[in-house]
């Protein structure tokens, strides 16, 4: 017996209904992820990777089955508690960065701290610290349009880190970046993982997946394979 899983999916299914058509995006997923694991999820387009990430991220609810984060079942939580969970426990990194175009790097990183109601933190200091950590200490007052793709993704990672999350969910974080920049971003994620943050990453690129200790392959809404790399 290892430690209690930080993420646990129990017979999770997700069915999208569009008119009279039903899309079975997930057909019954059982999955346990231990604290501190770095997991890469791979698989063909439409196999349900993003769908699972949204369920883990408490952005959506499964059609059946149960999703547990740090032992708490998401299906029993109220919307405000889910919002607080996303704010405190989870950090998101998106393929398209999703930065506010009119705000500078520092303001973007401070955004999640606006919604933090649990503790009194110095938002400015915390945001600067996170930008330093991702190597953008010199670019704090730059707007997204004044930054390269890789730099924008670093800002997004700094933003995900601001609330001191236990889990980072990254859906194709390198999908819009070139190989060299992708490697830099992956090294950053590896560093973060080394500091204890659980990371789940979706990618199509085997080289990117190589950075993870565990690789899960999806096909047609089911887990096809689940391998841990001996380290």
């Amino acid at each position, binding site marked *: 017996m290892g430690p209690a899983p930080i993420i646990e999916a129990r017979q999770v299914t997700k069915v999208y209904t569009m008119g009279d058509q039903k899309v079975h995006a997930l057909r019954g997923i059982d999955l346990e992820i231990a604290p501190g694991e770095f997991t890469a999820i791979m698989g063909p387009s439409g196999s349900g990777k993003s769908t699972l990430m*949204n369920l883990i*991220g408490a*952005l*959506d609810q499964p059609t059946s089955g149960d999703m547990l984060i740090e032992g708490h079942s998401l299906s029993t939580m109220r*919307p*405000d508690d889910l*919002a*607080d969970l*996303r*704010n*405190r426990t989870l950090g*998101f990194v998106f393929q398209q960065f*999703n930065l*506010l175009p*009119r705000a500078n790097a520092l303001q973007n990183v401070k*955004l*999640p701290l*606006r*919604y*933090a109601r649990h503790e009194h933190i110095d938002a400015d200091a915390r945001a600067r610290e996170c930008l330093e950590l991702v190597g953008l200490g010199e670019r704090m007052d730059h707007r997204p349009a004044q930054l390269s793709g890789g730099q924008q993704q670093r800002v997004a990672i700094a*933003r995900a880190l601001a*609330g001191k999350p236990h889990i980072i969910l990254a859906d194709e974080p390198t999908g819009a970046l070139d190989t060299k920049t992708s490697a830099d971003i992956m090294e950053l994620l590896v560093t973060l993982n080394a500091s204890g943050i659980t990371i789940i990453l979706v990618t199509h690129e085997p080289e990117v997946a190589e950075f993870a200790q565990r690789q899960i392959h999806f096909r047609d809404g089911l887990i096809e394979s689940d391998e841990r790399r001996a380290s």
Partner: protein
Amino acid sequence: MKFSVAIASAIEALFANLLRSFLTMLGIIIGVASVMTMMAMGEGAKARIDEQISALGASTLTLRPGAMRRGGRSMGAGAATPFTEADLDALAALPYAGAVSGQLSSSVTAVSGQTNWSTSLTGTDDAYFEIHDWHPVEGRIFTPREVRTGAAVAVVGKSIVENLFDGTDPVGQRIRVNNVPVSVIGVLEEKGQSSFGSDRDDVIIIPLRTARNRIIGAHRTTPKNVSRIEVMVADGYDLKEAQNELVEYMRDRRHIKAGGDDDFMVFNIADFVRARSATQATMGVLLAFMAAVALFVGGVGVMNIMLVSVTERTREIGLRMALGARGSDIMVQFLAEALVLCGTGGLIGVTLGFAGSWIAAKTGGWEMAISPQITLISLGAAVAVGLFFGYFPARRAARLNPIDALRYE
């Protein structure tokens, strides 16, 4: 999220799209400006009406001989029997009569030295000055004894001083009124124009009997005639009731049979002025209606733009939710934007309202009457519109599903 932070970013959003924000605010601006102008006009007109009423005597009833207008034809006052000095004495004995004054008036030519002046003459008694709350600034008014004996004394208005005496002190001087010499004993304080536009200071006032016996001449059949009586209703008596009792009392005195028409009229001056002011009130109602419509249209405009803004920023809302914003945080954010829009519109409207009230006061001829309350109510109206019309778009934003919002194209 703190409300102050929400307001700050709402102001940022307002500046991010300045032209659109301004166009959105336009309805609110017009609405608030008209709310303000309307209220300032109402206050100003009311203050002026009150001033006029008190100038005419708020509790004064005026009696004139002649019948009220009937069937579109006015019965001439000359045809009816005039009042007499006996009526004055009888009325003075009534419990609700605080003061009673009888008057005769005529147009006259007054001469001082080489200067001629056409003016109006009022023959009356000392009660006249009490009823009209009109006091001398130079000299004195006549004594009851001078009234009784018909002394050749005159109290004059400011315009007489200007036109007959070149502004010099006339007290002690003699003037000839239609060739009758009278000595000036007092000058009255300035009253200015009446609401009808006539100069109230262009008048010579002498004792009633002096006017009748030496200048105007007595009535053919009624020697001790009085053409007009003013009764100041004593404190503690209701003006309307006094008016009704006065009518009954005079019908009795003038032997009018039950069912017969009055051959005299009793005016309540306050009613008279208020009736004249009704047009101004109508205008106020019209403006109030316009203000309400403008505020409503402005509010719908704000709601429309807010709905567009919510749709445009669906992905941003989704992102904020992913980062941990609660529905209430999103709600506060959009309400703050509606509030900032309407509040700014309100401030601009208040500024315009000041200008509008100033113009209205100039053209209407009254004091500008903008109180802090009016300003606060106008701003409050803008804020209320913001909250009311911002609520629906804000709620729509707050109820978005995080994943649908995040993936919105």
